């Protein structure tokens, strides 16, 4: 009897500890970034371009660049991903072809991001002659986050009760209208979750944009989607590895990371608020 209690308690302690370790490491990571980065962040840092071989000044072009690239990636991947998910979950008849497509999507999710970068370089930059620019980078990042968005959207679509579809179809409403008016609106919270994950990934990646969009340094702000841009993760990479003043720019590196984390968290927060608002309206 006592031995059984002991085993039970041991189990509880273990699971609780695991959860605490995860929370603790995220907390420690955030505190560390904040403590090291906050000193560099001020109004000028956020609003001015870098100067003096990037050892001084701000990171405004990189903030803007990351914003454009992330937004572009979502604009490309969200419609494509949601439409693919609709096909897979609502229309496709299960069979070898569909299984192959699913395997393909899963493989895509496991491809290292630098491979996406090379693929983008080959297809968009060189073959389609877009050059290194926002468009090429956004397309590459879009493909990178596509599996995440398809996966989350498909789960969300499958989560809509079958009885809703039956009710709508039973009223003599076509399948397409049923998907548009009933299934999709009720799957929206889950689709948003997928987008949140996608945004975080797209904003933080360095390798896919290294060859396709990111500039080492440009003080000029982009005026079209065919302009090269600076980006936050690439800026950190450049300062930390390729510059001649690596130690000197340490505070700028931490500051840039802090801004990147804040930017992604901010976008996430907006999506989470939107999701809980929609969920509250659609209770079943």
């Amino acid at each position, binding site marked *: 009897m006592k031995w059984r209690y002991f085993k039970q308690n041991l189990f509880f302690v273990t699971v609780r500890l695991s959860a605490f370790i995860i929370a603790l490491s995220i907390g420690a990571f955030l505190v560390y970034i904040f403590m090291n980065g906050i000193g560099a962040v001020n109004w000028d840092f956020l609003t001015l371009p870098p100067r003096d071989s990037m050892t001084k000044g701000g990171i405004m072009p990189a903030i803007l660049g990351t914003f454009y690239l992330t937004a572009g990636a979502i604009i490309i991947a969200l419609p494509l991903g949601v439409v693919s998910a609709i096909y897979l979950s609502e229309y496709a*008849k*299960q069979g070898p072809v569909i299984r192959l497509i699913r395997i393909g999507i899963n493989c895509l999710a496991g491809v290292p991001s630098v491979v996406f970068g090379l693929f983008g370089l080959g297809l968009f930059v060189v073959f389609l002659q877009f050059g290194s620019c926002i468009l090429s980078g956004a397309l590459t990042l879009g493909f990178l986050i596509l599996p995440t968005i398809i996966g989350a959207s498909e789960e969300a679509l499958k989560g809509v*009760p079958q*009885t*809703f*579809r*039956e*009710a*709508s*179809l*039973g*009223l*003599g*409403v*076509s399948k397409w*209208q049923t998907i548009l*008016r*009933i299934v999709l609106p*009720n799957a929206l919270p889950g689709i948003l979750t997928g987008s949140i994950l996608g945004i975080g990934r797209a904003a933080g990646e360095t390798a896919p944009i290294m060859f396709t969009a990111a500039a080492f340094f440009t003080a000029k702000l982009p005026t079209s989607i065919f302009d090269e841009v600076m980006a936050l993760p690439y800026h950190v990479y450049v300062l930390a590895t390729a510059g001649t003043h690596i130690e000197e720019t340490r505070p700028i590196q931490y500051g840039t990371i802090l801004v990147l984390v804040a930017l992604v968290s901010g976008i996430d927060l907006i999506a989470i608020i939107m999701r809980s608002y929609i969920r509250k*309206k*659609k*209770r*079943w």
Partner: protein
Amino acid sequence: MLSDNIIEIKKVNFYYGASKALTDVTMDFKKNKVTALIGPSGCGKSTLLRLLNRMNDLIDGTRVEGEVVFEDRNIYDPNVDPVEIRRRIGMVFQKPNPFPKSIFNNITYGPKLGGVKNRSELEALVEQSLKQASLWNEVKDILNQSAMMLSGGQQQRICIARALAMKPDVLLMDEPTSALDPVSTAKIEELIEELKKKYTIIIVTHNMQQAARISDYTGFFYLGKLIEYNPTEKLFTTPDVKQTEEYITGRFG
């Protein structure tokens, strides 16, 4: 062909993949009458019901042989649009399934997509449908609230009103009261009595007392076959087939 038949099923076999769910079923449904389909679980009565507005199409790997004639047309003819059929033959399901929308929008959802755009026309339709489902007095002041907030019985009547708003000829009901309490069940049964003046009702029920109370005709199914089909009073008092008698007296099932 007798003119008082609205649907005629002729020699229908139905398969889910390799397994046969209905064998050689032939039966007619009379206009403006309530027909009940009874039988033990898995006997094919729900399958038959869903065959009548092609809801079985939604399941992969199903196959139909024979004819289901509605208004001189076989609804399984390749030229027939199932969407069109479902507008004329409405359905109420076992579990109340209102949409997570307001009461008003639940009722107008079908008609709107069917082409009714005029606001006052839609409002009139909502009032008329809810009155037909004897729900108007309970909900007329809360039409903009979510239908999900209503009780189970009220939700089922919303679903009936929603089906009626499409102005169907036939109403199929798949065990509409099995998820409801006795009071709500009694209300739905009263409602069916009222609705048969305008509509043809075909109802699947597990509850033999219910079939005896509300229906004019009853079909007894067993193992995918129609065992006996007779006026309800006859089927429950002097059935032709021994199996029917055994089932209604509770000796098996």
